[in-house]
């Protein structure tokens, strides 16, 4: 395997990791505030669809992007209503949201475009086109560094860079601002937040909305950046993998980057090689494709270091017994 191939694989790793990264950070904000969200998958799907659909109709990827974010935030608020206001079961709520999305997207897509639940493929301004970083072309021939720069870093769509920026940004918000402190506190011990005179409900809604925005970006990238249009069920479990990455990352932004890159790499390899040959034995493509899910289980089983989730995760805050 020559350097070029490796670069190509890493290049596609970055592309494929981006939606996972957005979703993972989304889950991070939500779970840090004590709201478990297995509805990431559904929100991503809804955002992917609406962004693609609106982009296709208006011809502007930007309008599409905002539509996608809107869709995901709307679902987030449903989740908030169920799990914060009505103290319902957060898992069931997430499951419901996943189905709602997978049903509605196809329903509306079919109704709008009659293409078997697909949107027309996006062209021109209707999708995010690659951005060539300055001097990418010039440096292309400089060995290693030049190639790294021009092949790996350069030539991705805007959202990839946004995602990368979101990592330090999330870290800063969570660990360097008042909001972050309170957000983390409400996920650990809401009573402490309450008795210090801060509204638990407001904080949790804020977290849920942030989660919605980030998931929206994930979905929008999937449909308008990574590919050019929406295909039914195109999230293909990425929402759940993002959750696993979140656990793997122990609910920390920077680790989230590495975790999602790992999953991205697995997918990139599975995409490139039908079946992988490792010293004689052939790994069938199906195993390659299942690898992310298997890895997820291994992570959840705590075989790669036990991760302590936010203590108040998954429970509604009830003051009086």
């Amino acid at each position, binding site marked *: 395997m020559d350097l070029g191939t490796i670069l190509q694989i890493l290049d596609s790793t970055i592309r494929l990791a981006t939606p996972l990264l957005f979703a993972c950070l989304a889950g991070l904000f939500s779970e840090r505030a004590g709201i478990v969200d297995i509805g990431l998958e559904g929100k991503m799907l809804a955002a992917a669809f609406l962004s693609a659909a609106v982009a296709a109709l208006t011809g502007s990827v930007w309008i599409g992007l905002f539509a996608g974010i809107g869709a995901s935030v709307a679902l987030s608020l449903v989740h908030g209503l169920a799990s914060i206001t009505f103290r319902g079961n957060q898992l069931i709520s997430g499951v419901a949201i996943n189905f709602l999305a997978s049903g509605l997207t196809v329903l509306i897509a079919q109704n709008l475009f009659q293409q078997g639940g697909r949107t027309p493929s996006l062209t021109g301004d209707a999708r995010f086109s690659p951005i060539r970083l300055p001097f990418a072309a010039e440096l292309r021939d400089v060995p290693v560094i030049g190639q790294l720069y021009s092949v790996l870093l350069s030539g991705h769509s805007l959202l990839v860079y946004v995602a990368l920026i979101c990592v330090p940004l999330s870290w800063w918000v969570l660990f360097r601002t008042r909001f972050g402190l309170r957000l983390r506190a409400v996920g650990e011990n809401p009573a402490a937040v309450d*008795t210090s005179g801060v509204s638990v409900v407001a904080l949790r809604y804020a977290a849920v909305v942030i989660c919605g925005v980030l998931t929206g970006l994930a979905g929008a990238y999937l449909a308008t950046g990574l590919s050019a249009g929406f295909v039914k069920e195109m999230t293909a479990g990425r929402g759940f993998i993002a959750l696993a990455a979140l656990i793997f990352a122990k609910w920390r932004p920077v680790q989230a980057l590495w975790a999602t890159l790992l999953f991205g790499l697995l997918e990139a390899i599975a995409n490139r090689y039908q079946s992988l040959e490792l010293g004689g034995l052939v790994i069938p493509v199906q195993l390659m494709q299942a690898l992310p899910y298997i890895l997820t289980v291994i992570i959840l089983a705590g075989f790669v270091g036990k991760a302590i989730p936010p203590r108040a995760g998954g429970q509604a805050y009830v003051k009086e017994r």
Partner: protein
Amino acid sequence: MTITPDTGRQAQPAAPAFAIELRGICKAFGPVQANKDISIQVEKGTIHGIIGENGAGKSTLMSILYGFYRADQGEILIDGAPTQIADSQAAIRAGIGMVFQHFKLVENFTVLENVILGAEEGALLRPSLAKARRSLTDLAREYELNVDPDARIEDLSVGHQQRVEILKALYRQAEILILDEPTGVLTPAEADHLFRILRNLKREGKTIILITHKLREIMEITDNVSVMRRGEMTATLRTAEATPETLAELMVGRKVLLRVQKTPAQPGKPVLEVENLKVVDDKGVERLRGIDLSIRAGEILGIAGVAGNGQSELLEVLAGIATGTGTARLNGTALDLTGRTSDGQTRRASRVAHVPEDRHRRGLILDFAAWENVGFGYHNAVAYQKNALLMDNDALVRDTAAKMERFDIRPPNPRLAAKNFSGGNQQKIVLAREIESAPDLLLIGQPTRGVDIGAIEFIHQRIVALRDAGKAILLVSVELDEIMSLSDRIAVMFDGQIMGECLPQDADERQLGLMMAGMKGGSA
């Protein structure tokens, strides 16, 4: 003699400088009247003690003052001015700080982070942290409140965690500080340190409300003391004019101890023998520090003591729920305390019955019907099986109906869900189940907590009847009169150890009260 609130003496003719005045506070939790028409005045710059049995309503009252709960009725005056305390924010603004019975700290945050939480300077943390760090060092100097600002809460001892709570309050410029059973979780040394801190605070003119069960503490540092019983404020007086005896009386109540008519015990052979029993909880704290005791057939051993001194652990390890070290022999054969080959089922098989302290959490399944709760734990009993496969629910229901009859459980409806019975009747369901399993040893905790007098008497008779049937009974209760009236022998527990033993006839409340408060009281 009865002692009535004597406000006349408190109200200085000069200036009625009341930091806090509560008028007619009422609070009910569902059917539970936690506070009934409570009025109290707290003088500025004093330490005001509040004592009362478990469940008397102390925490509820203070939670209302701090805006954590909303009162159903009544008004609150701060420095003479009527103040609406809708939420904790309002309380903080009014200069009230509270240290809860169960700390409200974020375990994996540092001390600094916990202190600034909710009281940050601006959108960014850095300045707030810097400021907090400075004022923390000041406070530490001023009040001997030294804690490492960068330590994580979970790494701190309980005593230090408590200081963080106090610091939190002071950092928010609290003028009035409420401490709910602060020493319940402290070692004597830590407690002494706490009192030094409190005195310093008082010297700085702060007002302090101190909730406790422990007479020694009241006598030691309070200026005034109020006594609560069953949700009501029964008396307020100057500590100087009170004695441990009078307070113990007020706390336990003047009502005649309902002496259950019981013949003297005819103790038989020893049924339970415990030696050097130790229990360490998951936090690594030693809850039982070497217990030795033995109970004979036809004898009731009463364990007196303030809640949280290891009684619960004692019951649970004997019942096979918790694990411990040491030896415990039942009728001569050793019980497995490690939990490896033992659990609730094996204990029941070896004829140990257990009435747990918390009926809501352990003793009952509130959503189950009465008959299911009667079968609960005994679901494997042969009598309840129709055949190898199926349970005989009808038999169970019939049996339940009979038990309800015998225990006068109302309403006598086996199919009613447990949660719809009143506390007293819920408790009777548990008792019916455990007592009628005809055990050799009955472990029974707080048999009459949250139960009305009528039911109390009945329950007591049942326990004595079981004793007279030649069974051994280990009774744990925070209600002194209950211990006094039921036990054949009394052991007092404090801080995971048995302070001493005595016989009810030659024990008096005062002496017991002192031992419960950790004073190596009179002989055993």
